[in-house]
């Protein structure tokens, strides 16, 4: 499997561990990511608010480059562009979606692209998030088959953030309100997934730079929720989320008098560990909140058979009502 790959600025800097680990995992799974040559910034979350047309043109340049480098849209298979960063993924897919909807907008954008000798036919690329590719193209079974060091005993809070499944465009790969694909992936690695009700809530984004108190409150809620469910760590799929929860955790502790020390890792890092790679090979050690104490738990306690409560008849005097059956329980 070969995909065009748009790393985005974060993966060259603060989320370097994400890039290292995803490349290591991809090699193990036989997936090839070919970086788009000469890509530029996606404009992140702010630029669209400043100037819509320019922002769309900025993003479209990447789409045009990727489409050209995958051999255009005439081939049998549609070119697939993978972005590991939620904001990049959102911008690329959003622009493609809106250009498809509005021929007028597409024409304006293509006029801008023409200045650089480029053009983009909306809909000629399929924009995918890395998680989508790993769970839907590679599949849970294939991932599970690669696991040689199961993450038994590790309690993981799966954090999706607000961008990866919203807005609920047609091509979105998971429920926009309560996604579960990362939960299933973590279970495939052998980890214990805790319920994490705030899994699709906002981490504050760039609000840390504009309105620090607001952002720190949002981050505090997430950390508190993970702590309430006794998560050993939070696993994320977005560089922004990772940065906010990791780098600002001390600030949260300072402001609210809390003592959280919850490591924040990328899901590809945990995949790499489960595949038997060394912590260094998946970039562990670059985070602010040291993940190594939490990771020491791996393999410490295999899930005891006793953990699945034995089917027992309700005791005499037990008046409790049965819980609803979940049909899709894995």
């Amino acid at each position, binding site marked *: 499997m070969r995909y065009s790959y748009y790393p985005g600025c974060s993966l060259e800097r603060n989320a370097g561990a994400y890039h290292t680990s995803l490349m290591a995992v991809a090699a193990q799974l036989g997936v090839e990511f070919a970086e788009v040559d000469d890509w530029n910034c996606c404009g992140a979350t702010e630029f669209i608010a400043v100037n819509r047309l320019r922002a769309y043109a900025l993003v479209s340049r990447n789409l045009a480059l990727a489409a050209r480098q995958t051999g255009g849209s005439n081939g049998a298979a549609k070119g697939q562009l993978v972005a590991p960063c939620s904001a990049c993924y959102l911008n690329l897919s959003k622009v493609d979606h809106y250009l498809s909807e509005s021929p007028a907008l597409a024409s304006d954008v293509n006029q801008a692209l023409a200045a650089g000798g480029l053009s983009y036919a909306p809909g000629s690329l399929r924009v995918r998030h890395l998680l989508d590719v790993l769970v839907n193209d590679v599949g849970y079974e294939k991932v599970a088959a690669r696991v040689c060091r199961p993450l038994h005993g590790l309690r993981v809070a799966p954090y999706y953030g607000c961008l990866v499944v919203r807005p*609920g465009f047609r091509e979105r790969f998971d*429920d926009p*309100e*309560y996604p*579960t694909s990362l939960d299933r992936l973590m279970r495939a690695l052998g980890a214990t997934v805790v*319920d994490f*009700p*705030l899994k699709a809530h906002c981490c504050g984004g760039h609000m840390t730079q504009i309105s620090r108190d607001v952002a720190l409150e949002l981050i505090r*809620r997430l950390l*508190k*929720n993970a702590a*309430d469910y006794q998560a050993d760590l939070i696993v994320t799929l977005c560089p922004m989320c990772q940065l906010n929860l990791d780098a600002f955790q001390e600030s949260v502790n300072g402001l609210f008098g809390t003592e959280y020390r919850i490591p924040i890792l990328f899901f590809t890092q945990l995949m790499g560990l489960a595949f038997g790679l060394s912590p260094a090979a998946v970039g562990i050690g670059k985070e602010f909140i040291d993940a190594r104490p939490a990771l020491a738990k791996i393999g410490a306690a295999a899930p005891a058979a006793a953990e699945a409560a034995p089917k027992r*008849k309700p005791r005499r005097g*037990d*008046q*409790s*009502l*049965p*819980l*609803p*059956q*979940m*049909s*899709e329980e894995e």
Partner: protein
Amino acid sequence: MSAETPDRARRDHHATPDAGHGERVGVYVCHCGHNIANTVAVEEVAEWAGQQPGVVVARDYKFMCSSLGQELIEQDIQQLGLNRVVVAACSPHMHEKTFRSACQRAGLNPYLFEMANIREMGSWATNDREAATQKAKAQVKGAVERVVRQQPLEPLYVDINPNTLVVGGGVAGLTAALELANAGYHVYLVERDSSIGGHMAKLDKTFPTLDCAACILTPKMVDVANHPNITLMTWSEVVAVHGYVGNFTVRVRKKARYIKEDLCTGCGTCVEKCPVRIIDQNFEVGLGYRKAIYRNFPQAVPKYPVIDTANCTFFQRGKCRACEIVCPTDAIDFNQKDTIVDLEVGNIILATGYEQFDARRVPQYGYGRLANVFTSMEFERMVNAAGPTAGRVVLRDGVTVPKRVGIIHCVGSRDKNYHEYCSRACCMAALKFAHLVHERVPEAEVFNFYIDIRASGKHYEEFYHRVLSEGAHFIRGRVAEVTDAARGPGEEGQLIIQVEDTLIGKQRRIPVDMVILMAGMEARKDARQVAALFGLGCDYDGWFTERHAKLDPVVTMTEGILVAGACQGPKAIPESVAQGSAAAARVAGMIGQRVMKMEPVRASIDAASCSGCRICNNLCPYHAITFHEDRKVSEVITALCQGCGACVAACPSAAISGAHFTRDQVLAQIEGILWDARQPEVLWLEPQ
């Protein structure tokens, strides 16, 4: 174009009526008020039609279907000697019958009439006046070409079997069955479940009168079971339907109960002694337990239990037989087998009901994840005195009484992600719940989260005001999520309902102990299969399609198949009962006619041309074609044929023709429609 002639209605547009057939055609173009005239130049179409060969007179009129419009046709038939009539107006579904009757009154065979649908297929489909006018002309031309080739036909008369099949034993089906039985007609009532009563049997009280549901339903159930005119078949399913209106043959599979009904006294000892206890997903909607041999509830009708073989120890492991040992009348029979019964009926009423929307599909509301989130049907069972908690309002632990209860409206309804429609009954049920919580837990606070309160019904709004005055809180806004992620000490240990209060324009977080999700109604999962079995249509959401939403709500497009209750769309009890009665009245009216006139549109096989290939034999959905082994030809049994035309199209020898849809007529109509098409550039070789 010439100037307007003062008396357009009397103008004879064409002087040479002979088009080679000697037929005298009258064409009538309807304005339908503005419906057609706004888009189609009706005067122009009429004037043009008058110049077509064979057309003696062409007129346009404001409302052709009105008595004046019909009289116009009748007068022309008599005064101008018309022997063919074309009306260009709405769909034949709407008014074909009307105009056929007009022709008949004037002494013209009704099958010498043809309709061109220029409304649904023309004026309503476009805003392009020129194109619509052009199309209307083509349709009129096609109709004229066809009508001159039509033959007078005589209707067929068939006897109507006075027996009726009612499918579904909920409140709609029960009502329909009782009405017909009381009118003196025999009814077969087939119910899939082990007991009749439907969803209503699960309810505690009914809004707005707060009648006890069981008190008003169980007597009806008993009446049905004891009625001499009703054959009650529970634990049974329809597997095949053959025939046509007046004469259906229905095959019913009676599932094995493993109980000898003639011996069982309904004492319930077997149920009591059965050692298997499992969660009842059907009647108790997962909130309570039942045994492997069970009745839905003690007052179930019929009183005989059934054995659930999937959970019965004897059926699974060959041991136990506890029920057999304790039965005082030896009524347990482990060797019972399913039986097949064929019923002969004249009409079928479908009252198969609805299913509740699965609240797990809205994961942000936490059903199945957060213990104290309940569905509305779970709560119905909880407040029911005969339910799992004997009517106590408690949390999932079975003992704690909630102090704050949140009721979320429109779960799965009025939501483009699930169902866009309103489920109609849930607002009132939510108000009833608010009242019942106040009644059972007087100190509790109740919060309703609603979009709009839809309390349109007799005494409904008054009930809303009553609940308001009882102190229930109403917060207008769609709930974003139900979560147990507390933000601060005030929320710890509770379920928090996050909602935008649209009346004050603010986000609010309301901590509660218990959440009730008012899950909407949806069509049964097998509604489409059932529709295919009985030969009727479903809409996009799976609800059965009625013939006319306003004027014919209980009859379907298939003669003799009627619908009643929530299988046709979301309904509360009063509407379901009304539809049950209405369907029964329609059937009784039909039975009262004793014989019924059938469309003479029938296929017939020209024995001389039939090659005996038998392709048509298996194709006929009505089993109306037999094969004569001796002569090696097929023959259509006219009484069974429904005129669908499947055989006509399939016959490789063109030996089958459908009356009123002959090859000649259809091809002439196509040619007429293509009157202005350019000459093809291909040279067609006429087959000899």
